[in-house]
């Protein structure tokens, strides 16, 4: 990371922030500051170039038409791809996750190229929209507690050999492929269908992004009381509905 401050880029809040995606930015910012880091937050609207110098990029969820517009503008801009090539940390949710993949189906029912930062291909699911609490086990190599989230999407995402599933669901649908996988990741690029928003329900994922940025194995402990209470409640709720 740069010497002065942690730079967090929120990509396209004008198009990709339908499901409280700002929450991921706020949680990351708050937990960094609680560790004594100064944070520079960059809200990048879709008519601005995506800077290549940020440490962490957050790409949120959006509705179908804004998703297509965002993909078109990100492809044309090229900044996020250049940042990824430099090893930037990228965390994406829902529509943003699909955009990071190789291809998705847009609002016009056409196959739309993504950014190719994750080896996944997304299509539109046939069944009902999946809406509800999710409980999943995160890839053990990431060393994180279970994932609790809320999903609200119709996508089905197929994973290629270049990525690993981010998690396996205990309840909920995740990638929608029927094999129980949820999300995808490789190195420092992550994608998930979870919102909630996901970092508020899973602050240890926020800490993982911070640890990757700082290249440290642990962070100063902070007060987790309310996060833990919310997690316990939502995990119980997901278990009951299962």
């Amino acid at each position, binding site marked *: 990371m740069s010497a002065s401050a942690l730079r967090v880029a929120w990509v396209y809040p004008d*198009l990709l922030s339908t499901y*409280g995606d700002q929450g991921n930015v706020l949680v990351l910012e708050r937990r960094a500051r609680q560790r004594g880091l100064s944070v520079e937050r960059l809200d990048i609207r*879709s008519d601005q170039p995506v800077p290549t110098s940020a440490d962490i990029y957050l790409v949120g969820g959006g509705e179908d038409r804004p998703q297509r517009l965002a993909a078109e503008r990100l492809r044309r801009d090229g900044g996020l791809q250049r940042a990824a090539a430099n090893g930037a940390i990228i965390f994406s949710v829902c529509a943003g996750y699909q955009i990071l993949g190789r291809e998705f189906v847009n609002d016009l029912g056409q196959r739309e190229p993504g950014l190719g930062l994750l080896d996944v291909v997304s299509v539109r699911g046939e069944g009902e929209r999946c809406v509800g609490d999710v409980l999943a086990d995160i890839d053990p190599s990431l060393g994180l507690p279970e994932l609790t989230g809320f999903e609200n999407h119709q996508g089905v995402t197929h994973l290629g050999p270049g990525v690993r599933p981010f998690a396996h669901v205990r309840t909920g649908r995740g990638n929608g492929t029927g094999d129980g996988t949820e999300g995808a990741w490789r190195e420092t690029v992550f994608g998930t269908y979870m*919102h909630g928003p996901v970092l508020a329900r899973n602050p240890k994922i926020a800490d993982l992004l911070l640890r990757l940025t700082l290249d440290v194995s642990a962070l100063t402990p902070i007060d987790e009381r309310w996060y833990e209470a*919310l997690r316990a409640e939502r995990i119980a709720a997901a278990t009951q509905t299962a």
Partner: protein
Amino acid sequence: MAESSQPLSARARLAVTAGKAAAAVSRAAGRGSGSVIGGRVALKLDPELLSRLSGHLDVVLVSATNGKTTTTRLIAEALRAGGEVVSNALGANMPAGITSALSAGAKARFGVLEVDEKYLAMVARDVNPKTIALLNLSRDQLDRAAETRMLAERWREGLQGLKATVVANADDPLIVWAASSSGNVVWVAAGQEWKDDAWSCPSCGGVLKREADDWRCGACGFGRPTPTWALSGDHVLDPHGSAWPIHLQLPGRANKANATTAAAVSAVFGIPPQIALQRMQSVTAVAGRYDVVTHQGRELRLLLAKNPAGWLETFSLIDGPPAPVILSVNARSADGTDTSWLWDVDYTRLAGHPIAVLGDRRLDLAVRLEVAGVDFRVCETLPQALQLLPPGRIEAIANYTAFQDLRRVVGN
């Protein structure tokens, strides 16, 4: 007028009677007012009932994400200056509820109807409205609501070719886009605090540029029309440039905006703004909203806020610190089960208020407030919150079912 209207057909009369009977049964069974079930039974017996029941009325439809119940009430009060009004005053705003309300209006001259956003085009087709008031469109009930732009598109198609005068908010780009398919629009500068659902051009997807009150698409030029009515501070400016003072008992900027729209609607029916605004002054609370109640020796003002735009407007009307605040959020089916919208609300604006947090989803709120860096206490029950909060009138802000819960506890 009632006298000059066609008498209802035998089938329609039967449908109305059957609907009233069903409502009575529902009431007797303790299931609320019964208005919706009554309407449902009646509509089933006669699908064209809506158009039959409204045939003799001058109809006004009101739709929006926020403020439609209040604005409906304000318009109804104003139009009473010109004759009897029938209205779905309690907010039953889908076709069944509207049918049920209209069946009480055989002698009325005006029908003032709040319509759910999703049903506006359909109801407009059936009731041949003289005026349609469109206030705002923003995100709401994320788990099932259609995209806001899709709603705007349905409105746009539905308004095409209608004879109605559309009274629309020039400050909401989605509303402007929806309304501009109509050939007859009265633009009102009613303002809009919430802007996060309108940064991309509804017409072409370009980025909207904003400068003071003005907005325009950088790509296609779609922009704010010139309004003929405007809210300016505590006054309504009419098309002749006269300023009329607003003396509402309802609080907040959003209600002044609602009054401005209501005055513009009233003018369509020949009721001058000074008379319309005078009549609106009699409205004190709308279906429990804004009511000040006393419970366990504490004074509470009950405020409903269902979505981020609503919370934003509510924060701007509450008393400043150190006024104590109760926040209550549920996520039952009527609220939408997705609570992610909490993160679109800027809770840092509550800094300095003593805050008690309630409701089914109080822990979501707790994390939200913790991240916002404001102090709060989590409570299990309202009495506990009342004991804990320091003296002073409490501003109690709740979303839909949490608001109903609060009203039940305080006996309102």
